[in-house]
């Protein structure tokens, strides 16, 4: 987009970049904020239906679809309270810390091939790392509120999030290993084609580890059944007991932002990213460079694909929340340390051995040999001046869309 601004409108380079950054930030912000509105409404409806009620019905017509907006206006108008013993500065800053962490992770999240804030070489790692920072806002909120409930909630959150980062990291490593890169864009590109090339279906181990990932992801964003930090039956409302008004809503935007983020990450790592289950675009020959508009269309469809998958993930989290009972703190810890971590480790080893001994997969033609990827490491700029032995046909710098086509053929 920056190139477009520079070339067509003639803006100076710095202004073009600034404008582009602004637009990207605006879009991401809207995805989080708008997404939160929709998701909150959806959650209320789903919760109601699961519990055999109606949920919001009045505001904005039949389905109460304006309920969230009305709530938002109410929150804006609400008096902003601060407890007497609170540490003012920390109390005020905590929601923003949470929100910023959740927001920053979106920087590296690709929505489609080049719909990404900043394509990072270590994208997966960055997203997971930044997501882990959200816990700081919660801890600070818990401490600064000068309330026992808040502090308990914060301590639980700290314990839980730090522990669950271990199996979560292990789960994330498996697709990274299969793709041979930590770049989210490349990982998604490698799963192009029919849905059989999604990493979910790569081998039995990745199939299992996907569910471990789902468990850990739910735990790491503090959703039920792992929402110990805000267990309302024990802790009033946990870390945000003392918050109200806009600050409170920031916590919620952060929570829904993170939910969307981990779901999108699941989609990118295991469910083919922006590639649909059936490679329609390739079948129609759209991605072979038939013009910019077509290209753009493919990207847009891809973006829609990813959003759909991520939303589906969020909806599943809601389903889980209203179906399963909350765990005790020791059960939460046991789930992480005694089950998730060993299973993730075993699956990681299994996936590695599978890569080693069955690189082509069980059914020939469906999988991709690992050697191709590994040879690519040694070529290209910065690599060794290597003689390509195993994969002479593939040049590392080809445009990804061509690569996709190759795979399909």
């Amino acid at each position, binding site marked *: 987009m920056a190139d477009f601004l520079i070339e067509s409108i003639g803006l100076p380079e710095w202004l073009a970049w600034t404008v582009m950054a602004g637009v990207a930030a605006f879009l991401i912000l809207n995805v989080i904020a708008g997404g939160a509105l929709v998701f909150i409404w959806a959650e209320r409806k789903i919760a109601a239906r699961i519990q055999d009620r109606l949920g919001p019905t009045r505001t904005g017509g039949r389905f109460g679809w304006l309920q969230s907006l009305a709530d938002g206006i109410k929150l804006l108008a609400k008096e902003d309270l601060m407890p007497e013993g609170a540490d003012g500065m920390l109390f005020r800053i905590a929601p923003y810390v949470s929100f910023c962490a959740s927001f920053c992770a979106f920087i590296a999240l690709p929505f489609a091939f080049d719909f990404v804030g900043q394509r990072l070489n270590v994208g997966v790692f960055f997203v997971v790392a930044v997501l882990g920072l959200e816990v700081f806002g919660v801890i600070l909120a818990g401490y600064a509120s000068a309330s026992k409930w808040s502090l308990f909630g914060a301590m639980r959150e700290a314990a839980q999030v730090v522990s669950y980062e271990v199996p979560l990291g292990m789960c994330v490593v498996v697709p990274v290993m299969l793709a041979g890169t930590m770049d989210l864009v490349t990982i998604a590109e490698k799963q192009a084609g029919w849905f059989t090339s999604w990493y979910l279906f790569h081998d039995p181990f990745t199939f299992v580890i996907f569910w471990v990932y789902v468990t850990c992801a739910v735990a790491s964003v503090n959703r039920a059944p792992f929402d110990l930090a805000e267990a309302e039956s024990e802790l009033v409302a946990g870390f945000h007991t003392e918050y109200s008004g806009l600050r409170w809503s920031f916590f919620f935007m952060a929570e829904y932002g993170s939910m969307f983020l981990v779901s999108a990450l699941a989609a990118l790592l295991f469910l083919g990213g922006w590639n649909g289950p059936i490679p329609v675009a390739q079948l129609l020959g759209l991605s072979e460079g038939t013009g910019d508009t077509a290209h753009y269309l493919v990207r847009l469809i891809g973006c829609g694909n990813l959003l759909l998958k991520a939303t589906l993930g969020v909806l599943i989290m809601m389903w889980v929340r209203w179906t399963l009972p909350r765990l005790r703190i020791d059960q939460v810890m046991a789930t992480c340390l005694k089950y998730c971590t060993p299973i993730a480790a075993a699956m990681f080893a299994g996936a590695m051995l599978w890569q080693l001994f069955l690189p082509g997969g069980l059914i020939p033609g469906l999988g991709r040999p690992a*050697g191709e990827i*590994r*040879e690519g*490491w*040694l070529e290209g700029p910065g690599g*060794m001046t*290597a*003689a*390509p*032995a*195993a994969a002479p046909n593939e040049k590392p710098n080809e445009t990804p869309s061509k690569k996709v086509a190759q795979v399909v053929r």
Partner: protein
Amino acid sequence: MNFGTLITNLLNDTVAVSLPLFRPELALAATIVLLLLCRILPVLRHLDSALVALGGVGFALWYAWCDLRGLPVGDLAAGRQELFTGLIVFDSLTAYVRLLLMGFLVLYILFTRVSGIPDREDGADFYSLVLGSTLGMCLMASANHLLMLFMAVEMASVPSYALAGLLKGRRASSEAAIKYAVYGAGAAGIMLYGLSLLAGVLGTCHLPSMAVELSKVAGVGAASGTVMVLSLGGLMLAVGLAFKLSAVPFHFWCPDVFEGAAAEVGAFLSVASKAAAVALLLRVAFGLGVDESRQFIVYAIGLMAAVTCTLGNLAAYGQTNMKRLLAYSTIAHAGYLMMGVAAAVAMAGVFPAGSRAAVTAVAFYLGTYVFMNLGAFAIVALLRNTLRSEEISAYAGLVRTSPGIVVATAVVLVSLIGLPPLAGFISKFLIFASLVEAITSGAERPLMLLLLVIGGINTVISLFYYLRVLKVMTFDPPPAERAHEAFPLVSLPGALVTALVVPVVAFGIFWSGLYACAQLAGAFAS
């Protein structure tokens, strides 16, 4: 070169060359994992962790012995081999120090088993920490790369912090641990900053390459700025090493930690940690001691040695607690060892044979020091179990109830002073002899002369406070309220003390075997 060749080369280098010479460390690592399994698996839960640790260390000791024996005798420098693509180096010094550490560990595990400080429940944790720390010390002795240097120091230190807090319920122990951890981590941080400056100027982290670059950068007509950065980095590195050596002015943790921690932990820190630190000092001093920087290094080590030795001995005077006294004695001995290192580095350029002899002296000193200091701490620990006190005054009149232990104490302390015919005498004699050799060969003559004089004076000073302990034990009347518990030599603890004390006498008389091993280590300087 494609990916396959790359991996094949790597495998060849690692499996065929590096791992066989890394067996002692591997044995330690395997033992640590086994100790952990002992806690987890129900089948292994009833195994005595001390026995498991002893078994593993036994293997490590055997491998270390084989490695030392396997060194080529004729051309000693040919035994030098860089392992793991230059990260660590295997040479005679590595082999010797490793053997020393493993031998120490065997004795140490027996000692802790007898004195009963890690009980069965905590045994696995305790031995994991001890073995983990020793693994770090082995790497300290063989570090050939700045990363390995820093990592080895951390690996040796961090478990020791936990060891210092071994007696969880005791106020002094937790205080000792927190002081050790804070000072230790601070020193490591400063050292790391120094390493970053050195690496930044020289553009490499591999010690031999650094030496090559150093002689280019610091040669004639070097920019003063570069020299300043180099010396700043060197001094900051020295802070970290001095902390590990407990050299003045970075010694202040030593008495507190030794007093607060259990005597068993004190023994570990005082012997093993010191041996590894001296080996690392030798490595760094020889590694970076090219012609341009040698004088700087010699003066830094030499002056620090003089101050350390004097201050350690002087401060030992006023002590009423036996562990504190031994702590200051440890500091003083670090001073003597550093004198040997200074002499070795000073002669490295002008008189290689002398340099080898000096390294031999340091290595021999370390070898006898294992028995002397482990013996001293064992006596403290075992007497604590009978007398329930570690104060010197509590030892009053001990000769009447248990003469055997007093004789043992006398042997150990006299050896620590360095009087004939005990092992300590030979070691000290060798160190002073190498100082004399340095003077005659004209390497840094004024400094060496100073060191010789200070070393002599210090030996005399140390006479008094060691003998005061013996005086209290023999001449002073026993305190009235003391339980009349004797310490018989015919018992398990008695046997242990005997086993530690006999070598102190034996090495004083038949020292050629140990000396031959130490000479192998000395070949490192060639």
